[in-house]
C-alpha cells in the first residue's frame, strides 16, 4: 500500500513538473514569435530595450556580414567579462539576426556556415548558467564567423583574428575582434591578455 502511494505521489509530482516546464516553453515560444513579428518590419510596439535592439539590427532581410559580425562582437565581449547572462542575451539576438539572413543567393557552404553559427548561438543563449559550455560554442562560432569572412569579406569592417594557444586543452582557439588589443574571451579575467593576432582582415 505504502509503495503504491509513493508511486502515485511521484507520478503526480512528475506530471506537475512537466506541466510547468511545458507552459514555460509555450511562454518562450510566444516570446519568440513576438520577436519575429516585431522583426518582420511591423513595428507595432517595442516594450523593452532588447526587443528594440533586435528590431534595429534585423530590419532588412538581405544577407549582411556586417550585421552578423556586429551581433557576434558584443557576445564575445560579454564572455571576456565572464558575464554569462549578457552573453546569453546577446547570443539570442545574434540567433535572430542569423535566422533573418536571406540565404537564397548563397552557396551551400555559406548556408552550412550560417546554420552552424545559428546552432552555436542558440546553445550560448540557452546556457546562461554554464559559461564553460558557452565558451565551447563561442570557439565553434568564431570559426564559423572566420570562415564566413573568408567567403564573403568583412563588409568594410576592420577586424582581427586572434589566437590563444592554451584554450581547449592546449589545442588552441581563435576569436574575431574589433580591436588590435588582445582581450581573451576564453580564459576569463585570469588570463585576459593571453593570445596574439593571427590575421588582420
Amino acid at each position, binding site marked *: 500500500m505504502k509503495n503504491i*502511494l509513493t508511486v502515485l505521489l511521484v*507520478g*503526480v509530482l*512528475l*506530471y506537475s513538473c512537466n506541466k510547468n516546464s511545458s507552459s514555460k516553453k509555450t511562454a518562450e515560444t510566444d516570446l519568440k514569435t513576438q520577436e519575429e513579428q516585431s522583426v518582420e518590419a511591423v513595428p507595432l510596439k517595442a516594450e523593452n530595450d532588447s526587443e528594440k535592439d533586435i528590431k534595429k539590427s534585423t530590419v532588412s532581410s538581405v544577407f549582411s556580414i556586417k550585421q552578423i559580425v556586429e551581433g557576434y562582437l558584443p557576445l564575445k565581449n560579454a564572455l571576456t567579462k565572464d558575464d554569462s547572462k549578457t552573453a546569453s542575451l546577446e547570443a539570442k539576438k545574434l540567433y535572430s539576426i542569423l535566422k533573418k539572413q536571406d540565404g537564397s543567393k548563397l552557396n*551551400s557552404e555559406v548556408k552550412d556556415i550560417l*546554420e552552424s553559427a545559428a*546552432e552555436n548561438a542558440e546553445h550560448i543563449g540557452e546556457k546562461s548558467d554554464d559559461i564553460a559550455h558557452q565558451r*565551447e560554442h563561442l570557439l565553434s562560432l568564431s570559426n564559423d564567423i572566420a570562415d564566413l569572412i573568408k567567403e564573403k569579406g568583412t563588409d568594410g569592417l576592420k577586424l582581427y583574428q586572434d589566437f590563444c594557444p592554451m584554450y581547449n586543452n592546449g589545442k588552441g582557439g581563435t576569436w574575431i575582434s574589433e580591436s588590435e588589443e588582445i582581450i581573451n574571451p576564453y580564459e576569463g579575467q585570469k588570463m585576459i591578455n593571453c593570445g596574439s593576432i593571427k590575421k588582420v582582415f
Partner: protein
Amino acid sequence: MKNILLGFVLIFLLIQIIQPARNIDYGQVPSTDISKVYKLPENVQSVLTNSCYDCHSNSTHYPFYSYIQPLSYYLEKHIKKGKEELNFNEWGSYSRRKQANKLESIAHQIQQKKMPLTSYTYLHPEAKLSEKQIEEMVRWVEQMQVENER
C-alpha cells in the same frame, strides 16, 4: 482522506489513456547512420548503442515503466530533445561542418561527464561510461578529427 486517495487513483488511471507515439524504428539501420558513414571500432559502436542511442537515434529500448504515465510523457519529451540535438541515425545527412561540431561536442560532453545524463544512468546503470570508455571515446573523436582534416 479516502476520497482524496480515490481521486489520485482516478487521475492516475485516466492519464494512462494518453500514450505518446513511441520512438521505435522497426526497420534496418538507415543508410545515414553514423556506422555507415565511418568504420566504427567495436568499442565505440557498443558505447553508442548502449549509452547514446536510446535518446540520440530513432530507436529507443523502452523499459517497462516507460509505459506508465506520466513517466512515458517525461521520457518522450527527453527523447525528442535529444534527437533534435543529435541523431546518430541521421549523421550522414549532416553537413561536414555540423559533423565536425557534433564530434567536438560529443568529446566535450563525455569528458565532462555531462553525457550520458545522470538521470538516465541512474535508471540504466549499464549505460554509465567507465573511465576507460570515456578515454576511448575521446581518443576516437580525436582520430576522426585528424582524418577529417585531411
